């Protein structure tokens, strides 16, 4: 038997497909470069700039004079924390938005982040827990809140809109719980309280970074193996199921993965405002929909946190935590989306 590949006939499909893929690959590479550049910047420059050779020497453990402490103890943990937390928020946020077909359905708007944050504060202030235990409480709370919101908003018709409204209500409630718990913790300074209210990278240490890295590996991996099915759910449940997707199992896996990512990140750095919410729509715009929204959203999340934290420390008149900066960027965008959604009902 001879195998004849008719290249003429295969042209339109593969050509069109390759063009879309090429664009996405270019976008991902640009985002990656941007991210590397930002990390280099945050490692080299703070109040003053170190020459690249000193930074490299410090990172590789060679004698770097005074640079060792600044780079390895101050800037590196902060940069790594920003990187992994941003990846988690970007991935988790976009996963929710794609799954629920609505940019407003991101975990920081529908109360998942607020739940994880309130639980983390509760675990620290009331239960005196630390490290992994705090993350575990935060993840459980995140899953609990997700179940609660699903339950409260289930029923026929307009499920998306109801879910978001219920989520916003739950979110507001949980934020007041966090504020209340913080009032009750007089030993804390303002900076520490700010972490739990808007998210902050202040005082980040390497030991706090590793749990988030582990979460990224586990839940990010779960999300990666569910990505194709998630992409098909965008065609609607019936179409996805007709293509062999187990829609409920997929939604369960994606919810678990996204809540895990967001809750671990929140328990390490606080609910960094609007990063989860902003990353997906920006990624969708850059990759024009497509199959590459999730990785692009992860990279954008990391860029937002790194850039926001850097700007908050060194580029504004006052030193501000990263959440204040990203919040200031996110709020107008939220307004814009709500106005637009009223007009034509946004999708992702």
């Amino acid at each position, binding site marked *: 038997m001879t195998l004849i590949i008719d290249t003429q006939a*295969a042209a339109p*499909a593969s050509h*069109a497909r390759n063009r879309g893929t090429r664009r996405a690959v270019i976008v991902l590479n640009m985002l990656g470069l941007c991210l590397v550049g930002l990390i280099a910047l945050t490692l080299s420059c703070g109040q003053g700039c170190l020459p690249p050779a000193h930074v490299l020497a410090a990172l590789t453990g060679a004698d770097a004079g005074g640079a060792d402490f600044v780079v390895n103890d101050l800037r590196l943990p902060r940069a790594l924390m920003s990187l992994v937390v941003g990846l988690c928020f970007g991935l988790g946020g976009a996963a929710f938005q794609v799954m629920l077909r609505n940019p407003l359905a991101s975990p920081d708007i529908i109360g998942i982040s607020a739940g994880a944050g309130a639980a983390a504060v509760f675990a620290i202030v009331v239960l005196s827990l630390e490290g992994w235990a705090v993350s575990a409480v935060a993840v459980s709370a995140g899953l609990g809140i997700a179940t609660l919101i699903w339950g409260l908003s289930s029923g026929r018709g307009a499920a998306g809109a109801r879910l978001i409204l219920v989520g916003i209500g739950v979110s507001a409630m949980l934020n007041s719980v966090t504020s209340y718990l913080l009032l009750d913790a007089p030993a804390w300074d303002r900076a520490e309280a700010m972490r739990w209210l808007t998210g902050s990278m202040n005082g980040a240490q390497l030991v706090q970074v590793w749990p988030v890295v582990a979460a990224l590996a586990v839940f990010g991996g779960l999300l990666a193996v569910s990505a194709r099915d998630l992409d098909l759910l965008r*065609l609607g449940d019936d179409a996805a199921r*007709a*293509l*062999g997707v187990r829609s409920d199992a997929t939604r369960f896996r994606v919810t678990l993965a996204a809540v895990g990512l967001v809750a671990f990140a929140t328990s390490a750095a606080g609910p960094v405002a609007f990063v989860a919410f902003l990353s997906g729509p920006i990624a969708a715009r850059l990759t*024009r929909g497509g199959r590459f929204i999730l990785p692009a959203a992860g990279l954008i999340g990391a860029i937002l946190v790194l850039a926001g934290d850097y700007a908050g420390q060194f580029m504004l008149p006052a030193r501000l935590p990263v959440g204040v900066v990203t919040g200031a960027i996110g709020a107008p965008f939220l307004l814009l989306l709500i106005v637009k959604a009223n007009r034509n009902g946004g999708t*992702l």
Partner: protein
Amino acid sequence: MTMARRLRTKDLSAGYDSRVILKDISLEVPAGRITAIVGGNASGKSTLLRTLARILKPKGGSVLLDDNVIHDMPSNAVARIMGLLPQSPIAPEGITVADLVGRGRHPHHGLFSRWNAADDRAVTDALTATGIAGLAERDLDTLSGGQRQRAWIAMALAQQTDLLLLDEPTTFLDVAHQIDVLDLLVDMNLSRRTTVVMVLHDLNLAVRYADHLIAVAQGGIHCQGTPADVLTEATVKTVFGLDCRIVTDPVSGTSTMVPIGRHKSGSVGQEAQSRK
């Protein structure tokens, strides 16, 4: 070329939550032929099609595909045999035609398998068969209604299944595009022997294009058989609650239904009105 598949139901009941919409359905879809499901609004046509397609779990009885209970089969295995174009699929923002049609290849892939030459061929064949190869790179939102419907059908064709189920594939299309889509389905049926099951709301087009007709009414199948057998004035009265005349369609030579209303229906219409 496709394999002949046996799709039938045994005492099937279908519905949602606690509500049973259809009871005790027994039917067999003729292999290699075109079957049309007709019935009034909200009579349960989509419910029947979705249950046949393994999307809705039966409330009782079973759907059998080649003598296997379809709800016990793995979803991926079913998706390689049977495709479905739902009544209102969602077009993700910014998706291109080639991308959409490529989604139809999903059931032929495992978790780690990559896009291959067979996928390219299937997509190209589907685009060519539906006459939209030239639109492969266009965004779906920029197409006309007829072109968009062809793209969705192409996605189902790229799935390369022996059975193809379609829920109202001609809604929202003007009459020329309706004929166009139905002709396309007949082409598929003739060239690949694909078994087609479709819900159609236009009774006359169903009669003209289908080999087998299933009329759904009052929570069950009112009657089924060849279009000539099913299309009677009595059936139309029960299924649609409409008075009509059955005449011969001068173009196709099949029967066709001419509705009788209260107005504009000549003397028969006045008769109908005076009887009320």
